[in-house]
């Protein structure tokens, strides 16, 4: 879920840069921006938001981590970083053990 949300946010960030750099090029893909924007803001992020809360309740995640996970829907790239750390601490990635 975080990968999907984070990827759409990265795409939107890329289109924002394109909007600043070359408006005519952006205008030609404005339909794509609308589709990805609505997909991110209306579909993916609300699901991700609720998932974060349910995961926090289930895994007893600290509040700071919850805030960072929720902010991942706004800060480009943060979703991937949070996914890495959360997966290592609570999920499928093995923990690092001191030698």
């Amino acid at each position, binding site marked *: 879920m975080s990968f999907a949300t984070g990827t759409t946010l990265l795409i939107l960030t890329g289109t924002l840069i394109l909007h600043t750099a070359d408006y005519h090029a952006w205008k030609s893909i404005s339909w794509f921006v609308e589709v990805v924007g609505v997909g991110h803001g*209306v579909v993916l992020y*609300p699901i991700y938001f609720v998932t974060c*809360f349910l995961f926090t*309740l289930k895994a007893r995640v600290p*509040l700071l981590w919850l805030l960072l996970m929720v902010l991942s829907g706004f800060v480009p790239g943060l979703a991937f970083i949070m996914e890495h750390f959360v997966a290592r601490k609570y999920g499928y990635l093995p923990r690092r053990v001191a030698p």
Partner: protein
Amino acid sequence: MSEVSGRLRWLCARSLRLHAALLGWVAGCAAAATWQVGRALEGNALSYLYSFEWPFFGVLGVVGWWMLLHSEPAAFPAAPGESSVSETVSPAAVLAPPVTSAVSEDDDPTLAAYNAHLARLAVAPKKKLWGH
């Protein structure tokens, strides 16, 4: 006793952090909703959708705050190499015979009723809670 624990639930450090986070979240959602309403009134069709979505996020934040407030704080399993509570129990205490109560169930009907209640709880299916 329950009143004291209820007050502690609302005023402990974790709860205060939750209150602060809720305030920040709701204020942010309100600001974003106001911005989107302004854009919608200017003619942006998509902003009509977002002007409803941001208050919805605010309400979700309140629901999450309530749920987190009524859940137990973090208790993580011990990592490899860390000592856990069970390791701090002395071997003598483990090997010692169990302490039996001087009062048997036959003598105390309250104790018998309480044990029957515990037995019922052990047999009955666990109540389904949010996120558990």
